[in-house]
């Protein structure tokens, strides 16, 4: 039987051009033809939005695969602020948060499509932004300096101190970078593995761009050219007692290996305020071990006021960025394999962060 005699059923011939592409919504095995299916599909989405038969979230979901998955290749650079136009929705938001933050959000959202491989989602970022912006401006009243040290593009590691039980320091640092870079960058904060197993928290973190801290994830983020926010103290940082506040704990050193391998600069950061937002009087480690929790803290408000006692006090945050440390200009990739070198370099970063904290307090 020749190719012409073969039945047309909407499947393409692997060796050649598509024989007959299926119309959307038709029986996939039925004979098909007519307009380009992608156009038909996009028209259907537009009609759907116009009819208003779905919620805004559904419309956002429906628009999901219009463009290439961002993480299939290196991320597109975000447009510069001057080039950004506001959608009607963001124009409404701009009345609340101001023109410039809305433009920044718009520039960021323009880069996001669907879900990336770490779970970052455009609707979640859009919904979370006003809340965190209010916390940034009104609750923590963040002041920051040294933004010129944040690389405008390419992979970068932002290394900061950690404190305050709940990771508001991470959220404020992410927002600060977003609000002070042009084109706006959304740093991907690395969170403890434990957070990945927490109901609701894991989904929220993933949707707003936080990534569980594994070597594979960190390597992949840097390979994608992302800026990554790491807290090398880990859980030790958030549960340190009030007597240790603003004294850096022991650093995990894996981030230096990845910086060397990805040829990424390290930007030391000091976040002042986080250690005052929930001062830990005691850490009941035996009970924490028994319950499988990283910490069971006693603070002036917890556990006396229940879960509300974990909420941070309205302290003022100050974020300072130090000069980038470019280990990759002095060390070859193979230095990442030498534990002694890696430890020594991590020590340098630790001293840089501690120095910034001491200067900023």
């Amino acid at each position, binding site marked *: *039987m020749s190719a012409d005699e*073969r*039945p047309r*059923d909407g*499947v*393409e*011939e*692997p*060796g*050649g051009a*598509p*024989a007959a*592409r*299926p119309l*959307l*919504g*038709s*029986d*996939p*095995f039925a004979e098909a033809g007519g307009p380009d*299916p*992608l156009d038909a*599909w996009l028209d*259907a989405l537009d*009609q*759907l939005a116009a009819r208003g038969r*779905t919620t805004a979230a*559904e419309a956002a*979901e*429906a628009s*999901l*695969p*219009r463009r*290439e*998955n961002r993480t*299939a290749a290196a991320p597109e650079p975000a447009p510069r602020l001057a080039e950004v136009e506001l959608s009607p929705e963001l124009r409404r938001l701009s009345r609340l948060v101001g023109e410039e933050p809305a433009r920044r959000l718009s520039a960021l959202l323009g880069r996001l499509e*669907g*879900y*990336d*491989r*770490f*779970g970052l989602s455009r609707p979640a970022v859009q919904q979370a932004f006003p809340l965190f912006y209010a916390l940034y401006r009104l609750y923590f009243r963040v002041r920051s300096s040294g933004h010129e040290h944040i690389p405008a593009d390419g992979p970068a590691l932002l290394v900061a101190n950690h404190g305050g039980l709940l990771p508001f320091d991470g959220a404020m640092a992410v927002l600060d970078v977003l609000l002070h870079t042009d084109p706006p960058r959304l740093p991907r904060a690395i969170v403890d*593995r*434990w*957070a*990945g*197993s*927490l*109901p*609701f*928290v*894991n*989904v929220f973190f*993933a949707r707003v761009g936080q*990534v*569980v801290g*594994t070597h*594979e*994830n960190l390597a*992949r983020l840097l390979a994608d050219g992302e800026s990554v926010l790491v807290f090398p103290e880990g859980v030790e940082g958030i549960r340190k007692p009030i007597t240790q506040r603003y004294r850096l704990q022991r650093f995990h050193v894996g981030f230096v290996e990845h910086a060397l391998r990805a040829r990424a600069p390290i930007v030391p950061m000091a976040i002042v305020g986080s250690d005052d937002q929930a001062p830990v009087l005691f850490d009941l480690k035996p009970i924490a071990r028994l319950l499988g929790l990283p910490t069971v803290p006693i603070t002036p408000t917890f556990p006396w006021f229940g879960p509300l006692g974990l909420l941070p006090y309205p302290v003022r945050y100050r974020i300072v960025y130090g000069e980038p440390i470019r280990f990759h200009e002095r060390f070859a990739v193979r230095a990442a394999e030498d534990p002694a070198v890696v430890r020594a370099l991590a020590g340098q970063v630790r001293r840089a962060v501690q120095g910034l904290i001491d200067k900023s307090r």
Partner: protein
Amino acid sequence: MANVLVTHADLPLGRRIVKVLWHDPEVERVVALGEGPVPRAFGTYRIGAAPRLVYERVDLARQRAVADFFKSKRLRSLEVDSIVHVPRHGAAPEGPPVVAKVPTRTAEARLVLHHAIEARGVRNLVALSSAFVYKLAPGNANHLTERSELDLDPEVAAEIRAWIDCDMLFQAQVSGRTDAASRRLRVVLLRLPTVVASGGYVYWNPALAGAAGPRVRPAGFDPLCPVIADKDVARAVCAALRARSSGVFNVAGRELLPLSMLGRWTGRPCVPVPGPLLRAAAAGAARLGRETLSSAIHGPHLRYGMSLDTSRAARELGFEPRYRIGVTRAGDGAMRLEAVAV
């Protein structure tokens, strides 16, 4: 490849693969094996005095039936040189539910592999496996390569354990070929994520297996699921049949969708239920022998997401997904997930 045998060709994915192979100019004849009667969709392919599509009814779970078929003169006359093993998978949402016979899947894989090695003329074996064989760590960002660890936890759900058993059977053949007969056989193992077909059909995902209807998932978790269009699976099979050497490959589409969204747009809305309640229900179901139900309501695949590294398939098989998966209004007016050629 000239004459290709496809197992479970009466099931949805098997039908799709048969059709794409039938259109492949390099394929002389397609031998479709199925348990049931000839699918109506094959009607137009079996016309003429010497049709290029031959359909045979064989119960792949029965050793005698399979042995008789593979040793028959009929099969020898068909000169099959390649086998595509499509494991048993779910039924169409509107059709009667086909409960996955979990132990059967492993038995079928073993029989097909054994006879593929025994049959002298067979040179290629392409087997479909599942990406749910991988061990998932907490979090939504398990990026899995072909070298990632399999979930060998003794408490893994029976459904997934069956996938792992099949996978390991074929993988042993890929990596540890010892005797002369098996050395001549090239085995390609394709690990598939959730398969989405036009019309809101979804296969391969233990949480969404079977007929349409509500499902449950642990409250507070919404794992990211990589998806692939059924037509892309068929294209990957074609590419695998042309592979130069044995190997294991992840194949996936470009999209990642949360389980809740995937369920919602395929007629299987996932209702969040507190995790401890699900754990208890799963233990009860397992005790009653309802293994499929048990794996559908409990397990890491319902809590932790994954993405697949498909670079090896792109590099060595030349496979790139051509279909995008998105929500659209279908011909019957319902909103569904559809696969669209881009």
